[in-house]
């Protein structure tokens, strides 16, 4: 188990390196100027790559890799209502630390998770990435982005879209997610079926 986790972490790091080398279009150069100046490298590009990697983990169903992107005290949160400011003590659609994420992983991969028997897949597209805050001393970041996710399950297509806010913490192996807030524009509607994995 521990060994598997280490391998997963390594593979995430490797993909990060490959991602950085990918050709990039001109994007929000001025917005990142400050970040660049303060720490000598392109923070925006780095966090974009992290968000894309996270999306790839979900679409590739690499659940352990997804969990590894979170700090050891990290939380994945989808509020029940947009006006909520914390998941503490209020209903949430997701409010999961890494232990609960591990429960979800183990369920999803259990041979008798019956509803996993039908073919399903997702496609995430992430955009509008902006750095909202950067702590010059610690390197911690607050990053806002938009996502569009299409899911195909059991011969039915569903769409989920909304915003992410990632609170990132700088660690020795790059940024880790301390808190990811997911606000779906269609979160309050009735759900045709449910959400089995993170969005």
């Amino acid at each position, binding site marked *: 188990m521990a060994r598997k986790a280490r391998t997963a972490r390594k593979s995430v790091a490797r993909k990060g390196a490959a991602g950085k080398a990918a050709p990039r279009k001109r994007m929000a150069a001025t917005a990142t100027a400050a970040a660049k100046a303060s720490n000598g490298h392109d923070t925006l590009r780095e966090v974009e790559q992290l968000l894309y990697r996270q999306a790839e983990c979900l679409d590739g169903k690499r659940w352990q890799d997804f969990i590894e992107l979170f700090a050891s005290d990290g939380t994945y949160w989808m509020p029940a209502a947009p006006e909520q400011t914390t998941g503490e003590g209020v209903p949430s659609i997701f409010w999961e630390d890494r232990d609960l994420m591990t429960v979800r992983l183990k369920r999803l991969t*259990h041979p008798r*998770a019956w509803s996993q028997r039908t073919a399903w897949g997702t496609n995430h597209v992430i955009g509008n990435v902006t750095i909202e805050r950067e702590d010059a001393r610690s390197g911690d970041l607050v990053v806002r982005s938009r996502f569009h996710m299409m899911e195909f399950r059991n011969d039915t297509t569903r769409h989920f879209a909304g915003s992410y806010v990632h609170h990132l913490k700088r660690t020795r192996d790059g940024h880790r997610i301390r808190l990811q807030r997911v606000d779906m524009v269609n979160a309050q509607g009735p*759900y*045709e079926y*449910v959400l089995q994995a993170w969005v």
Partner: protein
Amino acid sequence: MAVDIGLDVVRAVEPDRVHRSVYSDPGIFELEMERIFNKVWTYVGHESQVPNVGDYWTVQIGRQPMVMVRHADRSVHVLYNRCPHRGAMLYGDRCGNVGKGIICSYHSWQFDTDGSCKAIPLDKGYQGTRLTPGDDNTNIKAAARVGSYRGFVFASLSADGPSLVDWLGPAKVAFDDMCDRAPEGEVEVVPTCFRVIQQSNWKIFLENQLDSLHPAVTHESTGRAAGEVEEEISRKGGHAPLSYHFLSAFATPITKWDAFQTLGYPRGHCILTGYMGLRPRDPDTLAYEKVMEKAYGKQRMEEILGVNIHHVLLYPGLSVQSPLQQLRAVRPLGVDRTLTEIWHFRLKGAPEAIYRRALGYYNLVNSPSTMVNADDLWNFWKCHKGLESEGGDWVSFHRNAGQDHETKEVTTSVIGTSEQPMRNQFKAWTQYMNGAH
């Protein structure tokens, strides 16, 4: 040869099996709307959803769009969400406050929060017509009857039938158990409603609620997953929150569910007894018991906390999990589509930790990211598809049939996994479909 019963609801139900058409025939579904949902008491909402004068929540009873609204004298009214002029719905949103009164967005007829018409613009236009301002047919039509039990509001579209309390019968324990667990004797709503639609007939949901034969099978994956992480946490010297136990209990081996018991009451209401360790000896529970003892005295507190209920089913539209203060209201949308509205309540006067403990269950089991209902809903869809097929005519409820202990007021199953609750529900179904109230 396939048995075709048409709309013959008498032939459809036998004591130990029912014909598949009761789940799949759109004609029978229409009869159910008329003979069951237009008659019974339907759960509308909790009084605390509309705390202020003019607050409203829209809700569906059977096929009817309704609105629950708080009137100036603090009474709660349940009205048809329909303008008496040309029939527009008065509210297209889910909830809010009517402000100065109910105003129709089409031609501005105005109403008070009890449905009475206050003003019709340019009412000269009605002079000499058959419509007289002030007539009852200028008022918003109200539900035939409205009742409230310990803050839970019900309405019936039929003027005849038993009172709410008589209709609830012994199953009113759902609300007594929930409210008594509050040191102040009442609960208030947590203002979030999760809504989940299942692609199946409404009865499949109700039958599943007290089906203790299924958790060990359907929810094995989640039960085991939670159990493993729970163990891992304690191996590392930590203490997993009770939420893990709520989930891991689903993997309780199938043989153990027999130790529980189901009770069937008149009108299809049922109870599944037994619960999964809701009274641990942790500091949170002990602090709660202190507050409870202060409010009720030791003996009464023991009685209250000793109530042994898992689920109460109020047939045909409500499933209550009183020890966790949660309920699911069932709104049939069509023969093969059913909406559930899922609510959580706070025990007034109880410590925050007790609310949070139940909240863990609400988030993990009852939210749209549920790790439990995901597999139930999958089964419901598969059941419905199977029952649309001609692969067989009958649905079997033979398990422990003929072994139930029956008195006039209660039918008790011999074992927890008996199909007695389903038989009890169909007994009521038959009575309603044959014209009973």
